Each structure stands twice: as C-alpha cells, then as structure tokens.
C-alpha cells in the first residue's frame, strides 16, 4: 500500500475527530452515533484494493492518491451553468455545489401536501426523529465508501412522499462539482421515502466544472412502500478528471414498482452500486444502464437484485459502447432466497467494443436457494454488425453516419425507458452527439 493511501485515510479520520469535537451536545444524538459507528467501520475496512473481490477490476489507487477540499465553498452562479443545459421542464430542481445545497439556485414547485422536499440538513433540523428513522437503515456495512459517506454526511436531499400522493413534477437533483480552482470532493447523502400507493420520479444529474479533480462519493437510500411506484434516474456527465463512487440502496415492499436508469456519459472513473432488495411479494424492479467510456475512462456497474420474498420479478438490461483504451465492468448479482419461490429474474448485459485496446469485463453472479424460479442471464460483447454497416453504406450513408445510427439504435431501447422528458431529450442529444464523434 502506498503512503498516499494511508494519508487520505488518516486525514479523513483526523477530520472526523475535529468535527466531532466541535459538536457540543449534538454528538450524543442517535444520528451522530450512526456516524461514529460508520467511521469506525471505515477505519477497519480502509479503502478497498483490487484484492477485494468486489473491486477486483476497479482500482481506486489513483483516486485516493491526491488530496481534496471537501465541501468547498463556491461562488457559482446560474450563469456559470449555461453549458450544462438540460431542456426546461416544470420540475422540482435542487442544486448542490460541492455537496452544499444552494437554495438560491433551486426551485420547488410541488405542493407540500404532496411531497416534502428539503435538503437533508434542513429536514434534520425540522424533524430529526423522522430523518433518523431512515438514515443509514438500508446500507451495506461492508462497503468502505458507504461507511465514509455515512460518517461525513453533511447534506443531500430528503424526500418524503406521503401515502397515496402522486407527484406529477419530477424531482431533479443537480450535483455540480466546481473544480475550477482546486481538487474538490463531496459526499451527498439522499434519502427518498415513498409512502404506500404513492408515486414519484427522481433524477440525479452529476456535472463538473473546471479542469481540477473532483471526487464524488454519493449514497442514496430509497424506501419504496407497498403499492408505490418510483422511477429513479442517474445521469453522470462529468469531466475527464472526475472520480465518482455512487451507491443506491433500495428496499421494496409488497406490490411496489421500481425503475432505475443509470447513464454514464463521461467521467474518469465511475463506480455505481445499485442494490435492490425485493423485500415484498408481487413487486417488480427494473434496472437499465448505459455507458459510453472513451479515452482512458473506466466505468464499473455493480448491481444486486436480492429476492427475499416470493412472487416478485426483476428485470435488468445494461448496454455499453466502449472506445479507445476505455474499460468497462459489469457485475450483476441475483440472489433468490429460500423463501422467494416463484421469482422471475432476468439479466442481460450487451456491449459493443470499438477498439482492440478497450475491454469489457462482465460477470453475472446468480445465487439461487429456492427451487421454483425462472432466472435467465446473458452477456454479449461484440463489434458493430458489418452486414448492417454495408447495407447502410450501399444506400449512400457514410461509414461514420452509419456507425452512429447503428450505435444509437443499439442504445435506443434503454434511452426510451427514461420517462422524465427533459432528461430523456437531453440524453438523446448528448448521446447522438457523442456517437457521431469519430
């Protein structure tokens, strides 16, 4: 282990001590006790190395080799965000810059009977008991980055949709890393609680400004109560110097529906963990993913569909197009517990690798302890279909245009799953642009 890795860990542990010493009475709260337990866990675990099976193909050495200014203040104005365009839509839009909530940039349009939307910090001030009821209740104790996020939870989003409420306007979270002046880091923590028979759509969009490094370590916990319907999208369009570790932890109760769409457009190093517990009967979970690494980018998607109860269905489709010297990793776990009879679980990961120096590593992992289940999985990694390419060229379509049409067609079924119009249109444009690049 290099000395730098010890440095970042040691520095973080020391930071925690300082913060704690400044807390006065709040240090004894139940909320803080969770954080204290988390820092101890992080201390034990340390940053993962490639010897850890879950991190075998994703080396964080480079990520932890430099120091970062956590939660740095930023003078960012809306005008600085012009090129981060997402088409206009009536939506609840919340801005976070370097992890800090920016109410002056944000707008909330839905009524408070329908949905409580607030920064985690404000929500905690208003109702500590409510927030604490959900905070860190779903997370995986063995993940060092999650423990680190928990220990340093400062801000993020808190959403509570009461029972039976249908929220029409989506909630769009815009996380901006302002790395114009220095290396910055943020650890947003989001909690989304969707009551019985309620419906909501939430999107997290990550962007970077500037050329310095950014490190984002995001954790989102989503509680999907019975009969609820939740759509959750994550769009990463970060810089060539952006390191992103993201974990989304979902718990679903009876007859609930959950859709996740994870799209990684850009970023130096991206690791997404999407862990769904189908903790009820007759639920359905859907996971869609797209990634387009180029240059020396690295994208790793780890997913879990954990079937804990009978009669539920999970359905997963991830697709990637890899160029240059980029690397992709897909690890999809399906657990079917002993009780979870009559489970249907489908998983598919398809990739186009456009360069001999790019590589894709796929690993489906099925652990099935029930006997009456339907499970299928498949992965493909190939090139552009040469027959199709010639067919198009024989009609006058240039090779580049034909390639981008074919690649776009390859992604189209995933893009169409994104049901927030402004986000989908944004993706359609950015992806078409990206694919027409030679």
């Amino acid at each position, binding site marked *: 282990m290099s000395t730098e890795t010890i440095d970042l860990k040691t520095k973080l542990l020391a930071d925690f001590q300082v913060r704690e010493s400044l807390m006065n009475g709040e240090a004894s709260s139940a909320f803080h006790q969770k954080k204290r337990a988390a820092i101890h866990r992080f201390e034990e675990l340390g940053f993962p190395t490639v010897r850890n099976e879950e991190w075998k193909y994703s080396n964080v050495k480079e990520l932890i080799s430099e120091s970062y200014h956590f939660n740095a203040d930023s003078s960012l104005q809306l005008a600085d965000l012009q090129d981060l365009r997402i088409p206009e839509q009536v939506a609840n839009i919340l801005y976070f810059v370097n992890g800090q909530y920016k109410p002056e940039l944000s707008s909330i349009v839905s009524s408070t009977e329908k949905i409580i939307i607030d920064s985690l910090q404000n929500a905690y001030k208003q109702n500590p008991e409510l927030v604490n009821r959900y905070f860190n209740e779903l997370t995986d104790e063995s993940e060092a980055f999650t423990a680190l996020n928990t220990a340093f939870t400062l801000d993020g989003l808190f959403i509570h949709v009461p029972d039976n409420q249908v929220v029409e306007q989506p909630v769009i979270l815009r996380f901006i890393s302002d790395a114009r002046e220095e290396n910055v880091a943020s650890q947003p923590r989001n909690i989304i609680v969707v009551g019985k028979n309620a419906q909501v759509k939430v999107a997290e969009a990550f962007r970077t400004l500037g050329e310095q490094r950014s490190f984002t370590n995001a954790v989102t916990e989503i509680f999907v109560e019975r009969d609820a319907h939740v759509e959750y999208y994550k769009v990463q369009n970060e810089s060539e110097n952006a390191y992103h570790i993201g974990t989304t932890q979902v718990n679903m109760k009876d007859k609930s529906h959950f859709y996740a769409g994870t799209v990684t457009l850009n970023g130096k190093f991206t690791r997404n963990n999407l862990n769904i517990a189908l903790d009820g009967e007759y639920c359905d979970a859907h996971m869609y993913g797209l990634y387009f690494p180029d240059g020396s980018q690295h994208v790793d998607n780890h997913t879990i569909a954990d079937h804990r109860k009978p009669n539920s269905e999970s359905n997963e489709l991830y697709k990637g197009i890899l160029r240059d010297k980029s690397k992709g990793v897909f690890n999809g776990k399906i657990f079917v517990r002993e009780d979870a009879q009559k489970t249907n679980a489908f998983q598919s990961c398809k990739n186009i690798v456009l360069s001999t120096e790019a590589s894709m590593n796929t690993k489906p992992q099925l652990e099935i302890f029930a006997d009456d289940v339907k499970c299928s999985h498949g992965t493909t990694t190939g090139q552009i279909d040469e027959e199709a390419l*010639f*067919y198009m060229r024989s009609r*006058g379509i240039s090779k580049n245009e034909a390639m981008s049409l*074919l690649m776009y067609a390859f992604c189209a079924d995933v893009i169409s799953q994104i049901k927030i119009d402004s986000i989908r249109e944004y993706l359609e444009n950015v992806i078409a642009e990206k694919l027409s690049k030679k």
Partner: protein
Amino acid sequence: MLSINELRASIEGKEILKGINLEVKPGEVHAIMGPNGSGKSTLASVLSGREDYEVTGGSVTFDGKDLLELAAEERAAEGIFLAFQYPVEIPGVTTINFLKTAVNEIRKYKGENPLDAAQFLKMVREKAKLVSMNDSLLKRALNEGFSGGEKKRNEIFQMAVLEPKLAILDETDSGLDIDALRIVAEGVNSLRSPDRSAIVVTHYQRLLDYIVPDFVHVLYKGRIVKSGPKELALELEEKGYDWIKAEVEEVG
C-alpha cells in the same frame, strides 16, 4: 454507362470472378442467369463496394469514373443501387429514418440542400404507393420481423425513393408469389428511362416476362459464358444449364 473489363475478384484467397466482361449502355436492362454458386451475388457485391472481396484484376468504369476507387456510399451517391438477395435486419432504426438519412446524405454528396420533413414525407408516400408498401412498415425497424416478400418489396421501395442510374437486383424475385412479383416488376419498370439501366440477376424466366431484358448473360464458374437476346432466357428455362456446362467443358 457501366463498363466491366476482365474483372477478377476473390474472397479468402479463393478466386470467384475469373475475368468478367460486360458493357451496359444507358437505358438497357441486362439479365444475368446461371447456376447457384456461379458468382452472381459476388459480382453484385463487388460492383456495390462490399469490402470483403478483393479485386485482383481488371477494371470497372461507371459514367467515366473508376468505380473500384469509390467507397460503397460514394457509389450509391453516384447512382448505383443494389437490391440485396438477403436484405439485412436492423433493429432500432426505422425504415423511414434510414431512408431519410440516405436521401440527405446523397444530396449532401451532390452539394444539394437536405429535404425538409414535409418534402421528404410527400415523396416517400408517392413511392410507397407505387410498390404497395404499407405505411405501417415504414415506421417499423428496418426489415425486422418482415416476411420474405415484405423485405424484397422494401428493397424495391428504397430503389424507387433513391432513383438510381444503375439498379442491380440480386434474385429479388425468389420467394415471391406472382402478385408480389408483379409489384416488384412494376416498380422496376416505372424507373425505366433512356438514361437508367438495370442488371437483373435471376434464376427464373418468369420475372423476365415482366421486366423484359435487352440482353441475357449466363454466368458460370466466374465467367460470362454465353450472351444473347431475351429469347436465351426462354431457352434456359426449357433446357436448364447442362447444355451450357457441356459447351464450356468442351471449349475447356
């Protein structure tokens, strides 16, 4: 218009075309017949620019240009169209979108402005009617799940939209019932004009009842071994290819 001289081509080191000579003048329709495996599809592929084949000798000029120097898309823009023996299915790309891209790419090549959506749609509707192509097929993914007949009709529809100078039809008639055959032939005939030509590859005389050729050629073992007027097709239909094979073996 098209002048093929001693054309030789091979794939994976195996020579398939062994010196083809063919002259197609404006307005002419040439039929190419011959047993399976003779090299008919290979000739069509080489003319339209498929890169799997290696041209090992000879030359092809099209409207005075060295055809073999051009990429497949450039040949299409110059006015060559191949109706595929086995049209390719392309999931995720609708027929209409595909054709719009093709039309506008060709216009760009010629230095013309792209058609706007309304102009394009109007043109496409007319052409679709011409080949009795159902509107609903246009909105579906290109050839995906189309029946054999629908795929062939789609080829002719695309040809009608792109209005090529030289259309090469590779067994467009096989697998079609008589009604579909008639529609395909009407599509081809509607394009006939003093400055447009066609090469029709077929096994059967019956297509040539509808698309009457000026010349019939027999391709066998990579060479054109016999050429004649349209009556040659009738003779082949009646007598098969054995007599031609025998003639070739005799000459040696």
